[in-house]
């Protein structure tokens, strides 16, 4: 389903980053572990098609992501990949619901408000549909970000340190939510984290720190 083969990133004045090959099946959940600076976020960006590797390939389903360029790549990403950023990056000028319909629109899909409300309901923040992001608590904002990532029913869900700013109870809740939603879409879930609490929730792991 998701296959990252011999991905390499070369920085002009730094050592090149070589990533282990990653193959994940549909519905499989996996942790991306390692200390800060080992390249977790970089690998997520490569998987998301935000960063083109200098060599190696990325495949998602039947599509060779590394072969796509420009607007094609943007559209494929919007349609098939859901991303939950560490800083969430909700659009501050749009309401919670509009943040979700914007995700539909940007992916080139028709605006489907019921589907957007459904996604909000699944993560338990439907009552905040017309609130602005600034009016949400951290926990609510996190849920909205997850809802936005799943609203287009992606094949791949990428999250970057989803639990780093949360207490134990909320961290567990968010991980459960991510797993449940990934299951619902039968999507690959890739969680980059250095948070030990995540390890109890997800079995499969890739440790970039040890090169395993």
């Amino acid at each position, binding site marked *: 389903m998701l296959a990252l083969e011999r991905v390499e990133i070369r920085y002009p004045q730094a050592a090149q980053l070589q990533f282990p090959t990653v193959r994940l099946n549909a519905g499989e959940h996996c942790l991306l572990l390692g200390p800060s600076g080992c390249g977790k976020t970089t690998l997520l960006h490569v998987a998301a098609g*935000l*960063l083109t590797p200098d060599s190696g390939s990325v495949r998602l389903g039947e599509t060779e992501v590394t072969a796509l360029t420009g607007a094609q790549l943007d*559209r494929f*990403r*919007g349609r098939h990949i859901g991303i939950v950023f560490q800083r969430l990056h909700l659009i501050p*000028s749009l309401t919670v619901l509009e943040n979700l319909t*914007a995700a539909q629109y*940007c992916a080139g899909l028709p605006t489907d408000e019921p589907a957007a409300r459904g996604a909000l309901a699944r993560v338990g923040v439907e009552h905040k549909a017309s609130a602005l992001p600034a009016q949400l608590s951290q926990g609510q904002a996190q849920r909205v970000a997850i809802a936005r990532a799943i609203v287009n029913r992606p094949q791949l869900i990428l999250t970057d340190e989803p639990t780093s700013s949360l207490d134990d109870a909320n961290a567990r809740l968010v991980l459960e939510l991510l797993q449940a939603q990934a299951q619902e879409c039968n999507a690959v879930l890739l969680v980059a984290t250095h948070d030990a609490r995540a390890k109890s929730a997800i079995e499969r792991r890739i440790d970039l720190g040890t090169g395993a």
Partner: protein
Amino acid sequence: MNLLTLGMADLRHHKLANSLHLILLTLGVAIITALLLISTEISGRLERDADGIDMVIGAKGSPLQLILSTVYHLDIPTGNIPLDEANRWAQNPMVAQAIPLSLGDNTKGFRIVGTTTALVQHYQGKLGSGRLWQKPMEAVIGSEVSKAGLKLDQPFVGVHGLTAGGHAHADHPYRVVGVLEPTGTVLDRLILTSLDSVWEIHAQHHHDADDHDEAEAPAMPGAAGGGYNPSQEITALLVRYRSPLAAISLPRMVNSQSKLQAAVPAFETARLLQLLGLGFDTLRALAGVLILTAVLSAFVALYNAMETRQYDLAVLRCLGASPGRVVAILWIQAIALSVAGTLLGLLLGHAAVETIGRLANTARGIDLSGLIVLPAELPILLLPLVVGTTAALIPAWRAYRTDIAATLSAG
């Protein structure tokens, strides 16, 4: 959800800053519009009033004053001239038409002009009701005079002098026999009658001279000359040349061979507009600076907003929006701001001129209307396109080139 909603939501989100750009833009456009309207209407009116009048012959004095008093009916006359001498010039072979004018009285501030019916034809006046004057003390009034309350068949009394509130010639009432349709010229503000009417009143007036004090004399400053019947004076002669060649010699002949003065409206009007023009140019430069400031502020604002918006735009890219769409959102924002500013500015400019026109109407000067649209305003409509595109250019370029991964990692 579409590009417009995305762009507008962001504009709304930064209401305060965007209102400021809007106000700056609106003021700049409003000033340009108002200037355009005022200068066009003033020069247009001056040209129409002087159209077909090549030269004015009147008493010596300031040529500008002679033109202002007899062509535009704004100033007091330089004095009177003897009718026989005026007639001598009227019969000059180089003169195609000469219309005599005799000023001196008013009613409610509207000037009563003793003249011939040639004046009505000259301004292409058409009777809305009634007929032209045939006998002394019959009067035809312009459209604005009729708006001010004079009606057909209504008697009225002339007041000595050219402004309201002088000595009334109560024993010589006029009667309105005709009302003219609006011509958009000075004719609208005049009360026309025969030369005889004016002579009749003032012959009487001079017979009764001992009843009046000399303080009234300045209204007819040239009337004191001796040796001829004062009733046979006129104020000026509006002359049209038979051929353009007359322009070279006739004014000089009048000025050198008689005690009269010849003034050329085209020349004096140009001089007047040149004096006014200085003011217009200054204001126009000021409006230009205002618009430039508005463009600059919109530009700086959009550019600054980019610093924080980069994350939003990068997120939109992440969500699948192409670079082109992101650029379109920025462009829509800039265009929306400048279109709104331009339209508001046009509206404000017209409203301002209309207000000035209404407030200044009592001065009986040139009417200003904000309700007309000039072809010269069309280029102003192009302004938002230019301003908006310019302001959006660099931010859009940055958004287009932005490295989403780097931007989001930094954020």
